């Protein structure tokens, strides 16, 4: 899935999530199928029950952008729940960090006892678990780790279709690393195979969050498209995927409407982080999507609704008529609106000097009329209402 969320300050956050499920009996490894063998061996032979590795570059600006979809600290973060069959957890942890360092070309081999801890209360297993023995948990963070193309390439290789088809074709390094925030993560956990939960499957969840900001400086240019963000468009869905969707957050924020082209396959509403949000859904597996054009380039346009903004200005003519400025504006709630006018002083002829000219000149004060919005009006019986309701 790809989730595109326009951010309040004009940027856009793209979150990819790829989930691969491996139906394997624990302990007996038979057939990897779509699950990457390198990670499968960690589960099968190294006694890893849950693995969460996140590589992040940049800083999620919560004050400007809002809540992040997936939290991760800057640098490399690794926390692992081992299976209870593991005898020496520290030795297994050291070996695991070396293996992961080799798989992801990151310097995770610097993880050792000097920077690993065993939290007792902060982390709980995210998958199926038979009780939580905290001695099987290890956590380490390397804040100085830098994420670059060498980390992205092995990450992409873990995907079933690689970067050749589906949503992963958008993941090109030259655009992803020119972003304000980049976070890629790998999560492995055991899940129920079906509703009855008789058997256990392994789920590999690969997520990548990237934030693009527009630094062009011109106000109001907040239009985004897949091509503008990734310099690629999607040509086909991954044939191995059972589900491939793009979600675009089209909720109205601060009176801004988001228009998406081409028209989405469907609309989806959900309550996210306490707010009701609307998502436009593009289903890449539906045949109608690639019917009209061979490639899909989702475009977002931010538009302000055209409410009445009326300005009438009649400039002055010296010694003949004054300025007239009438404006109809909507004042946002709980705010202060300032209107400034720049003026130049003119030299007066000697006959035009008023008495006591050093006193200065008077400006005509503005007069305003408040037009209450229709929603706040109540029906009033005008004949019986007392005086103060008409003020």
């Amino acid at each position: 899935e790809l989730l595109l969320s326009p951010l309040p300050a004009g940027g856009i956050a793209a979150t990819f999530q790829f989930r691969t499920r491996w139906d394997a009996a624990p302990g007996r490894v038979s057939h990897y199928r779509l699950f990457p063998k390198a990670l499968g061996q960690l589960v099968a032979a190294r006694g890893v029950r849950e693995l969460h590795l996140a590589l992040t570059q940049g800083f999620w600006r919560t004050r400007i952008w809002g809540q992040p979809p997936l939290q991760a600290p800057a640098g490399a973060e690794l926390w692992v729940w081992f299976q209870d069959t593991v005898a020496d957890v520290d030795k297994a942890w050291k070996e695991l960090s070396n293996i992961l360092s080799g798989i992801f070309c990151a310097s995770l081999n610097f993880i050792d006892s000097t920077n690993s801890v065993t939290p007792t209360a902060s982390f709980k297993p995210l998958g199926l678990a038979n009780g939580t023995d905290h001695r099987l948990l290890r956590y380490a963070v390397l804040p100085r780790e830098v994420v670059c193309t060498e980390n992205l390439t092995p990450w992409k290789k873990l995907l079933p279709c690689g970067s050749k088809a589906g949503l992963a074709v958008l993941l090109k390094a030259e655009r992803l690393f020119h972003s304000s925030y980049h976070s890629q993560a790998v999560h492995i956990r055991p899940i129920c195979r079906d509703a009855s939960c008789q058997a256990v499957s392994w789920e590999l969840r690969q997520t990548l969050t990237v934030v693009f900001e527009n630094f062009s400086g011109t106000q109001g240019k907040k239009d985004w498209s897949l091509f503008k963000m990734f310099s690629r468009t999607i040509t086909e869905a991954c044939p191995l995927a059972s589900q491939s969707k793009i979600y675009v957050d089209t909720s109205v924020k601060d009176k801004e409407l988001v228009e998406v082209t081409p028209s989405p396959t469907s609309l989806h509403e959900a309550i996210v982080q306490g707010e009701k949000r609307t998502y436009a859904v593009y289903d890449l597996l539906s045949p109608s999507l690639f019917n009209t054009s061979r490639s899909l380039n989702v475009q977002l346009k931010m538009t302000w609704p055209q409410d009445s903004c009326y300005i009438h200005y009649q400039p002055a003519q010296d010694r003949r008529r004054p300025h007239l400025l009438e404006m109809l504006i909507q004042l946002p709630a709980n705010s202060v609106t300032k209107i400034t006018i720049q003026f130049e002083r003119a030299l007066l002829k000697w006959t035009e000097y008023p008495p006591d000219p050093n006193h200065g000149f008077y400006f005509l004060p503005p007069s305003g009329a408040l037009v209450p919005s229709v929603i706040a009006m109540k029906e009033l019986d005008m004949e019986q209402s007392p005086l103060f309701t008409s003020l």
Partner: protein
Amino acid sequence: MAAPLVLALVAAVTVRAALFRSSLAAFISERVEVASPLNAWQRVVEGLALLDLGVSPYSGAVFHETPLMIYLFHFLIEYAELVFMVSGLASSDSLWSFSLVQFKKQKLLIELDKYASDVAELIRTPMEMHYIPLKVALCYLLNPYTVMSCVAKSTCSINNTVIAFFVLATIKGSAFLSAIFLALATYQSLYPVTLFAPALLYLLQRQFIPVKLKSKSFWLYTMQYAALYLCSLVVIICLSFFLLNSWDFIPAVYGFILSVPDLTPNIGLFWYFFAEMFEHFSLFFVCVFQINVFFYTVPLAVKLKEHPMFFMFVQLAIISIFKSYPTVGDVALYMAFLPVWSHLYRFLQNIFILSCVIVFCSLLFPVLWHLWIYAGSANSNFYYAITLAFNVGQILLISDYFYAFLRREYYLTHGLYLQRQDGTEAMLVLK
């Protein structure tokens, strides 16, 4: 020759770019010496904003630019700084080419037999004249007046460019281009119409048509040139009418230039007079002041008909001094021509005093403005005193050059060491 010019251009661009980015840019663009009601940048922005609002830009008393200028900036508003830098460079380039052509012509005009025998030291040698084009370009590019005018984004730079192109077209002998640029220059600010006379005299000289009132070819050529000029002017004015669909621009631009209703202080002579005048006489004095600009054309044409390029220079200077809303950009334009007449240096009598007057007045302008407007301890008389001194300095400078030019011509034909009938040394006196 091209390499030093390129170096000068690079230096000029650097200076302007540095000033654009500094905090001085805002300060300079507010100075009344640099931005007049006719060519201030804030007024252009105001006019464009009024146009966007749907109101005619000329409905207020603020905007006095021509419609062609509005449309130029309508499309180039994002690149305004670049436009002004390019126009400055274009002017300097055309002035450079003008001096180059002038210098080449000078080489051909060495008619030694017409001159007296001992005037060899007065004739300009090619060695001396080699560096004049570069000096002209430098004099325009690095003149503080031009730099300030460009940084303030005053449309005076664009007017100067048009006039520079006109001068270049005239000296190259192309009557058609010269008429077109003169029409544009007149359309922008009314006064370059007086440059018609020197341009005509130069083109006649180039065609070897003698200036005699009885000669048919003289009248024929004059009619041709005048027709070209008037037709281009009419075309440009009609184009402006169609751009904005009204004739509002004529009273707003030309009526404003001629009737001087806005009395914002500037480096000219009009504002104080009209602020202190009785209403009864204002029309009379407006006419007198405006005639003053146009009046000198005829006597100068009679005196300088053999030397139309010098006439052009003096006419430009007269326009810059006596126009209704002069700015330092106009002063910079005629000052760029001074290196062309550097051979007159030995005949100039007051050059030191006059250059001191001009420099000191330029430095005192902001001081007295501050004292008048902000400190409140001076009044408009102080500022007008400096304006008067500055203009008197300019007038004396031009008359000094004029006198020097006439003296040199006299010496060329009568010999350098004048002698009276009885053999004693004679002095040349202007009567």
